[in-house]
């Protein structure tokens, strides 16, 4: 058989080293809108089967919340895989090779607008004209598997780069809020949230319904917070237990609730209003939307496993080492 004019290896090398690719500044080299949007979504794991995110169901048990960092290399490989579709020859490979840095840079910007696209707030064309600034920094988030997700599908989730003191100054909160990149229910009771940056405080807030009255039920016991005359929760105070009627366990013993509140005030909680009328009782029975705060030191959490081996730290940092890079590059050449 006649020998080929060039070998496939030499072709690939020629393709990879040749600079004959179209410059990325040429408008035609830009990704088509649909493709860019698809890859942007992919970057935030939109559409990735849940089993790939949580490979073992025990990693996200019922009624749990797990915080995480997003492995950007993983997301980059997703994009590589997507672009590999229709990549039949060296020409496509060379093209991808030449354009990959620009694609990555562009997607770092595009992924910031994905949430707006998902909520149909803006069109892709608008997003292109008004790109979201960003540098492709750290992405973090959490997975919440709880009945609270199905019960309160519109819960308000926010992350901040500072532990906001209570009561929260909303202006302060706005300046410290991290951009939410994705907030989506993956299943009726599983919520995925992604944030840009490393949060120090995350809160999940019950949706607002105007003024509500009620009690807190924990383990079958009813209690209410101590509130001052402005209905602010008195921080660090012990909750007041709510007695019920012996004849019907769902009926509150309203008079005794009032007595308990008055007693708490007489015992030294002078911020509480004097219980001499219905308005004072109403203030104490107010049920404001519950805002659950999650906060930590932001440091690397202790993480222990019992795996049989302690492997080479993490894959990605190793690859940043220069010798390793040279080694890999040598393999390609």
């Amino acid at each position, binding site marked *: 058989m006649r020998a080929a004019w060039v070998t496939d290896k030499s072709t690939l090398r020629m393709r990879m080293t040749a600079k004959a690719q179209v410059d990325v500044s040429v408008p035609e080299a830009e990704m088509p809108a649909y493709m860019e949007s698809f890859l942007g979504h992919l970057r935030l794991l939109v559409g990735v089967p849940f089993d790939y*995110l949580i490979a073992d169901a025990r990693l996200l048990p019922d009624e749990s919340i797990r915080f995480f960092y997003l492995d950007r290399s993983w997301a980059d490989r997703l994009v590589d895989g997507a672009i590999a579709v229709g990549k039949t020859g060296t020409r496509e490979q060379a093209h991808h090779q030449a354009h990959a840095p620009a694609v990555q840079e562009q997607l770092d910007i595009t992924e910031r607008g994905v949430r707006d696209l998902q909520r149909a707030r803006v069109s892709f064309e608008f997003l292109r004209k008004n790109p979201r600034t960003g540098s492709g920094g750290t992405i973090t988030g959490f997975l919440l598997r709880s009945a609270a997700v199905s019960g309160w599908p519109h819960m308000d989730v926010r992350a901040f780069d500072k532990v906001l003191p209570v009561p929260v100054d909303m202006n302060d909160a706005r300046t410290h809020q991290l951009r939410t990149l994705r907030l989506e229910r993956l299943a009726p009771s599983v919520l995925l949230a992604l944030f840009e940056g490393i949060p120090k405080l995350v809160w999940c807030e019950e949706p607002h319904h105007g003024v509500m009255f009620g009690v807190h039920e924990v383990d079958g016991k009813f209690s209410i917070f101590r509130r001052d005359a402005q209905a602010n929760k008195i921080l660090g105070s012990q909750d007041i237990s709510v007695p019920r009627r012996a004849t019907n366990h769902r009926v509150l013993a309203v008079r005794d609730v009032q007595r308990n509140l008055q007693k708490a005030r007489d015992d030294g909680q002078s911020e509480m209003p004097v219980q001499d009328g219905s308005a004072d009782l109403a203030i104490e029975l107010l049920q404001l939307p519950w805002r659950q705060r999650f906060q930590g030191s932001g440091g690397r959490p202790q993480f222990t496993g019992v795996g049989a081996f302690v492997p080479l730290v993490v894959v990605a940092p190793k690859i940043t080492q220069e010798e390793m890079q040279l080694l890999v590059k040598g393999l390609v050449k």
Partner: protein
Amino acid sequence: MPQTLQPPPQGAIFMFDYATPPLQPDSYTLTAQTDVRFDNASHPLTDERSFDVVGPRFALPPGDVAGVFPPRNAQGPYEDVLAQIVIKRRTLPWERSLDKTNLIGSPSSPGLPAGYPMPWLALLLFEEGEFTMLENTPLENVVPADVFKRLGQPANVLCTAIEADRQLVTEMMPSKEELALLSHVRWVNIDDRELNVEGSDGWFSVVVTNRLPSRGAKCRACLVSLEERADLVKKDPPPSFVPTTFIPIVTKEVAFRDVQFREAEQFKVVERRVDVDFGRLTISPEQKTRLVVLYTWQFTSQGPGTFFSLMQGLDVGMIGKVKKEGEPALTDTAHLRLELQDRGGEEETVWYRGPLVPFELTRDPLGPYHSADQARRATPETGAEDVSYAAAFEVGRLLAASDARLAQELMRWRRESYKQSARIDNLTDLKAEFQLDLPAAIAEQVHSPIVPILATAAVGTIVSNPGPIADRYGIAAASKAVGMNPEVVQKVYGLETIQDAQALLGGEPATFGAEVRAPQPTARPDVTLESVLADKAGLETLTQARDRVIENVKTKLGEQE
């Protein structure tokens, strides 16, 4: 209320214990008497006018209701919420007397100041199966005879009523003092969108119930009139209790495997302790009671529990936290051991880590990857493969492949790039030959109208320096043909020496081997008109040539004639 009281700012609420009307609904007679004196005599002028102050008594127009919570027909987690009704008339709950003749009596240990006004309304919460609604019932059939008498025996009043077990109603009926505690007045800013209702002055009266809905119960909240209902409202509430140990009466909505037998047994014990009085099953009319309903709505309390308790009960941690160590076993790098079949069909243990990791990782700068195999890694310590990134690659590929439009767009992206790249290649080649008038930026070069630019450049080059025409007869090209190559000819024909082959091809090696030089162009010095005119010999030759041509033409024409 002092006149100086400013309305609350937006987002704020002012709360008041009560708002009593200046006049209670009743029939009033206004007597005007003026003593007029004239002529030293008194002429008193007297006039009498009657008027009625009326208000809702046996029904509440829906327009007077500013809102209810939980919303009408809503389904949601309301088990820790006290239902409430917000009424646009701020004085409504205090417009009528609960008990004019004080049949109920005073509370044994009053907790409210003396003279605190008592409301005549209460919001009662019934669950499905506990009640019967009666529409358009004559009032005398709803309230007991003595109450009807105390109400003034209004004739021809049809009202909506609720009928329920008397014991149940007594169990949940607020005591006299509790009634007062469950009604208040709210003042909000009229511009507040969340709190205010359109068309109102910002003032509302609120009646709250005292009963919490059970989980999963379909509930009916009823605003009932307790005017003169001394038969139901007691001066003191029944005894209360605070549970110290929790006995789960309601089954927890948890995954099936989490239900423990111990809890179920406790549940049974509780059931046994309830004395079942079969005698109560015979229903006699005395055991039912009816109440006038001014307004009613339904909602369903359903859901897993309260937001507060669910959130407080969450298991919080970074990803990789497991309930019991080793289940599943994770490495320090958060890799999970997986069994898989490799492409050879062999069972293999590999490491996998998803995109969610418990610590920050730097980004892999080596990229892009063109195949999943390129992203496979082996761990030196175990020799096992790390397929995390390879798996990511394949997921991305499959997701993209399942989207037909994406494949098209990818093609379009490449095709456009190839097109432009070819243009740039051509431009590079052309630029080597011609001086092209192109912009500096490549992006602009690609979009320049290349045909006219090239044409201009080509014409310019020809005009300025046409250059010699090389290889006029194509011999150089012909010599490149395989058959003209003496070495090949020698090999093919099995000739002994290369000279033989050369001879065969035409002898002289120079025929093909030597470079053919273009002939030197004739020197053409610049001439002027004067120098041409001075060249007599030349002009003479030209004249003779002209004459000769003319002669020839003449001869030719003469022959024709």
